[in-house]
């Protein structure tokens, strides 16, 4: 009896809590009414037409940004065929789960207190925003939700960037859990400082930090997280020999990389030009052109570099060069002239090849898709490039070429903050995940491929065999799996040794062990 009573009391308590919350939300949506139907925002006059043009522009560019995820998914051509589904799942989760978490919490932290198309969104200070959770209350407004759509599709990139560096060896559970921290704290709060007009935006040097389309907010933050993730995971089996010489793990379809890069470039033009967030801002043409030529220059630079170095024009690497150029120009695309965009793209290509060499040979971090170099290194270079090449024709941003050093100082502070914030919190996050759930798959799973083991199906199925329903052999399968786990764990301990006789590196048991 007592139990039932206690139970019903608990139910009552739960009910009254939910009811209060519901009443509060109802009250809240009445109290600070937004404009959910758009009737008050639109008027049949010049201002109303201008407003609807803005909506059209921002929404359509938002749709092209979502399409960039197709490009990200195709970059999986750089991975081994046994791990493609795993990488694609990572990107897919960023597009779905990432956007949802951003809806519930991230957007409010990032844009609380921000004014958009004349609509001021609730409360926020220079450190964090706190208005617009789940788009409740006053955020249930056509203007705010337009901003939300644009920013939510942009936010999905963070997960896809990290996926490139942690590919082929990360546990799906750890990856999913990391989203709950990245999309609520790391990305939105840094984003608030720059895009939500926080303290970085209002720095007293130059006009404050300017990051037009996310070199810093998206790519430098994503690249830093990717680097930390790859560090904590360690290299894939067979990537490095005992003495630290990097080996080769070739991708299964470089053609996918080319497709993916061009799809990304298409979306990127919409992303950068749409970041004007106003159809009446005709600077958009300069922005789009700058973006395009910087990417093209990055690609050409890397293509020639690989030709000079190896005698072959490496198209896969050139694709990464294209992306490096696009990342580098993202921050500065609105503030520079086309000649400067070409220079930024050229230096972006150089930054890419240098940092690939540095990360692979010096830091010994295994980064399968080059996300750390493409997004991290070039994101930072993109931030700095505003302080160097901005010519003062747009937004009063003047860089070194006009003789003002202040802007460069602001941009430099943004770089340091991005590394410290994303890198520091990333370390804490991966450390906790590593000790609580573990972040790396077992050696057997890595040998056999993540696709079959984590997702139940290979990406490329050449099977002609017969299928039958699952029979009662699960107990036996478990024992066999345990045996396999042990065998592959032992194999992973093997060293790559240099065979004097053959003159190549081989993965063999050391001679002494063989005799035993």
């Amino acid at each position, binding site marked *: 009896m007592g139990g039932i009573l206690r139970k019903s009391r608990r139910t009552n308590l739960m009910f009254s809590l939910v009811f209060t919350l519901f009443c509060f939300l109802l009250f809240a949506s009445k109290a600070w009414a937004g404009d959910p139907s758009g009737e008050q925002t639109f008027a049949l006059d010049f201002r109303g037409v201008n407003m609807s043009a803005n909506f059209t522009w921002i929404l359509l560019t938002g749709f092209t940004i979502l399409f960039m995820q197709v490009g990200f998914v195709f970059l999986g051509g750089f991975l081994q065929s046994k791990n493609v589904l795993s990488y694609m799942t990572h990107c897919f989760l960023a597009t779905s789960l990432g956007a949802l978490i951003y809806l519930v919490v991230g957007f409010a932290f990032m844009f609380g207190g921000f004014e958009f198309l004349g609509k001021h969104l609730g409360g926020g200070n220079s450190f964090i925003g706190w208005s617009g959770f789940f788009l409740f209350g006053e955020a249930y407004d056509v203007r705010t939700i337009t901003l939300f759509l644009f920013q939510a599709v942009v936010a999905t990139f963070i997960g896809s960037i990290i996926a490139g560096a942690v590919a082929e060896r990360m546990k799906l559970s750890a990856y999913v859990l990391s989203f709950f921290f990245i999309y609520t704290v790391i990305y939105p709060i840094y984003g608030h400082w720059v895009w939500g007009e926080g303290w970085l935006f209002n720095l007293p040097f130059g006009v404050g930090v300017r990051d037009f389309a996310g070199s810093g907010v998206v790519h430098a933050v994503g690249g830093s997280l990717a680097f930390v993730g790859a560090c904590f995971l360690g290299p894939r089996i*067979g990537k490095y020999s005992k003495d630290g010489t990097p080996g080769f793990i070739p991708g299964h379809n470089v053609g996918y990389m080319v497709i993916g890069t061009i799809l990304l470039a298409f979306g990127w033009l919409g992303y950068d030009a749409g970041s004007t967030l106003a159809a009446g801002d005709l600077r958009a043409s300069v922005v789009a052109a700058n973006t395009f030529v910087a990417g093209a220059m990055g690609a050409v630079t890397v293509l020639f570099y690989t030709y000079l170095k190896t005698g072959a024009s490496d198209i896969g690497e050139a694709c990464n060069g294209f992306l490096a150029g696009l990342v580098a120009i993202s921050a500065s695309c609105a503030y520079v002239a086309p000649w400067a965009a070409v220079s930024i793209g050229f230096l972006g290509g150089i930054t890419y090849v240098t940092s690939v060499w540095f990360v692979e040979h010096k830091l010994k971090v295994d980064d399968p898709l080059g996300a750390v170099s493409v997004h991290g290194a070039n994101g930072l270079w993109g931030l700095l490039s505003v302080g160097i090449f901005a010519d003062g024709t747009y937004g009063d941003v003047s860089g070194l070429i006009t003789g003002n050093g202040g802007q460069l100082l602001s941009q430099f502070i943004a770089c340091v903050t991005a590394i410290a914030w994303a890198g520091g919190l990333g370390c804490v996050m991966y450390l906790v995940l590593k000790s609580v759930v573990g972040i790396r798959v077992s050696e057997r799973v890595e*040998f*056999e491929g993540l696709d*079959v083991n984590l*997702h*139940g*199906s*290979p990406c490329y199925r*050449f*099977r*002609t*065999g*017969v*299928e*039958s*329903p*699952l*029979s009662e*052999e699960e107990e036996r*399968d478990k024992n*066999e*799996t345990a*045996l*396999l786990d*042990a*065998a*592959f764990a032992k*194999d992973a301990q*093997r060293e790559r040794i240099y*065979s004097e*006789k*053959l003159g190549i590196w*081989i*993965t*063999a*048991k050391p001679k002494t062990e063989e005799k035993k």
Partner: protein
Amino acid sequence: MKKIEAIIRPEKFDLVKDALEELGHAGMSVMEIKGHGNQKGISEVWRGKRYKVDMMPKIKLEVVVSDEECDKVVKTIISEAQTGSIGDGKIFVSELSNVYRIRTAEEGKSAI
């Protein structure tokens, strides 16, 4: 002369290949094949349902060696490809009547 046909796990191929090259048997033919012995396949998922895959991907390795070296090669393959679990594969050894090298028209042991 003996022909050794070894059917092994694809994940173990690199280890076996390296070990054979160490032994001095760099020449080999490799095929990606499908099949099953006692293993009877593993389970996969298709559209939310688990089912058995009867035909497993395997790698078939063919090496031709002289009679004296046969044992050593077979032992190497076993030690490299063994995990102790069902599905490790099989090795078939058969007698060859002759071997010719097309380039020089040599025959017998020197043609291996």
